[in-house]
């Protein structure tokens, strides 16, 4: 049993937000959660979003880069259609990742989701680096992070996770801000801002220009972020970034994480979360 900021989990392995669509995985693979102890949704936003122009992904040494751009149905259709359908195929706690472009976006969504019995916890995505007008400004600023966390905290009684970016000057400062704002746990970390070029043209390969780097290439940076935050705050930490094996997960636990999340490794191999879980439990 793992206790994560008020969330009771069967084991310490989750999926990273944006790396597993429970409904698609259920339909295509016959398995909605891939063995994760909680299902973390793709980030939802107040209004429907089409996402960024293609190409959205590219392989990089030791991982990949993406600029997906938060495509999604918007809060209303998420609550009326996606959430009930997800709850019908997911038999573990559902953590809803919430994204936005203003404090009001976060507060309004948190308030609405607080009323949903299918929602076990909220994770604030303050760190998506892909939305030009968006959340990076909140997630990179101590005062903004504390303020939005505090406002959401006041609107929900559900466990509240705050996900932070590695592409900041001082992770400890932001971790303390989220804790001070009332977060029950931190999720560390998110993709790191990066870029790849088309070598024929010298122009950005991804439709959105820049993107987020994930996979093993991110692991040392994410591990350092976890260790830094561990030294700065007392609340639980979900560690992620390039976790492929149980040994990778043990690194994060040793650095101070309470639980871990598997992300990009799911794309390579949908058995990855179970492999990590079984390896951690000694199976």
């Amino acid at each position, binding site marked *: 049993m793992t206790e994560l900021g008020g969330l009771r989990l069967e084991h310490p392995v989750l999926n990273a937000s*944006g*790396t*597993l*669509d429970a*409904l*698609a*995985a259920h*339909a*295509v*693979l*016959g*398995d909605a959660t*891939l063995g994760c102890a909680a299902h973390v949704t*793709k980030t939802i936003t107040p209004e429907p979003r*089409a*996402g*960024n*122009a*293609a*190409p*959205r*992904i*590219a*392989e*990089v040494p*030791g*991982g*990949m880069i*993406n600029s*997906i751009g938060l*495509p999604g149905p918007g809060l209303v259709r998420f609550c009326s259609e996606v959430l009930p359908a997800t709850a019908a195929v997911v038999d573990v706690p559902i953590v809803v990742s919430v994204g936005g472009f203003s404090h009001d976006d976060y507060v309004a969504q948190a308030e609405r989701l607080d009323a949903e019995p299918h929602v076990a916890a909220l994770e604030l995505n303050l760190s998506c680096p892909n939305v030009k007008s968006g959340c990076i400004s909140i997630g990179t600023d101590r005062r903004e992070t504390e303020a939005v966390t505090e406002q959401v905290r006041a609107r929900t009684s559900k466990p509240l996770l705050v996900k932070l970016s590695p592409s900041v000057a001082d992770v400890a400062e932001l971790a303390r801000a989220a804790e001070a704002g009332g977060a029950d746990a931190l999720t560390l970390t998110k993709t790191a801002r990066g870029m790849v070029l088309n070598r024929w043209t010298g122009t950005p390969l991804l439709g959105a220009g820049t993107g987020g780097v994930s*996979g*093993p290439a991110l692991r040392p940076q994410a591990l350092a972020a976890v260790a830094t935050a561990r030294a700065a705050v007392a609340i639980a930490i979900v560690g992620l970034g390039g976790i492929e094996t149980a040994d990778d997960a043990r690194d994060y636990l040793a650095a101070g994480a309470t639980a871990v999340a598997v992300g*990009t490794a*799911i*794309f*390579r*191999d*949908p*058995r990855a979360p179970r492999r990590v879980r079984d390896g951690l439990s000694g199976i």
Partner: protein
Amino acid sequence: MKEPVGVAVRRTCAVGSYAVVELDGDLEVGPPGTFAMVRDPTGAAFLPRPVGLFRRPDGTPAFLVDPAHGVGALAGAATLEVLTPLGRGFDLTGADAATTLIVGGGIGATVFFGLPAALGAPVRVVAGFREDRQAPALDLIEPAASRAVAIAPQLVTDLVDLTGVELVLASGPAPMVRAVAALAAAAGVPCQVALEAPMACGFGACYGCAVELDGTWQRLCIEGPVVAAERLA
């Protein structure tokens, strides 16, 4: 749970400038137009790659790669992890080989290899390639009732004659399938197109394979890879 299956590479053989990678093991090969995600667990590539699986005449599962490009590295693997079958293939309900025209380009022709078997008759093929040494890939569409080949700079659309055609199945680079779709639309002939996009997972998780369908960005691995041509934005 559907999961990747580890298989040995039986052999790799050249077909023109392409390579056919034959696999050991009892893999499920989906209907024409569906795909598989294939990864070399010891290779340099981080992500799996989408390929079109087909069966050799002796039943051996195989796929076609261009050794000169990205996916080609798979041709050198000893073992591969294969997640199959994935996606939606061609809707062949009521299709008659005699009135169906297959129009393809380059490596995209790979989705046609299973069509003669699926339709139960030889098929009519029009195909385009960048170089003539790629054209032998058409030998894998067996049996073919007729073949017409355009080598760049000739356009495949120059060879398309829709007289008596009741269904067009197209596959290849986006500009080509769009041009074919436009010809079919102008002639009032139903057309299905197999599209290509970079993919990380193949099962709807990554949202990386977005294509514009019905005027918005959608996941090709879930909506396709084969879609009705009228859905192209």
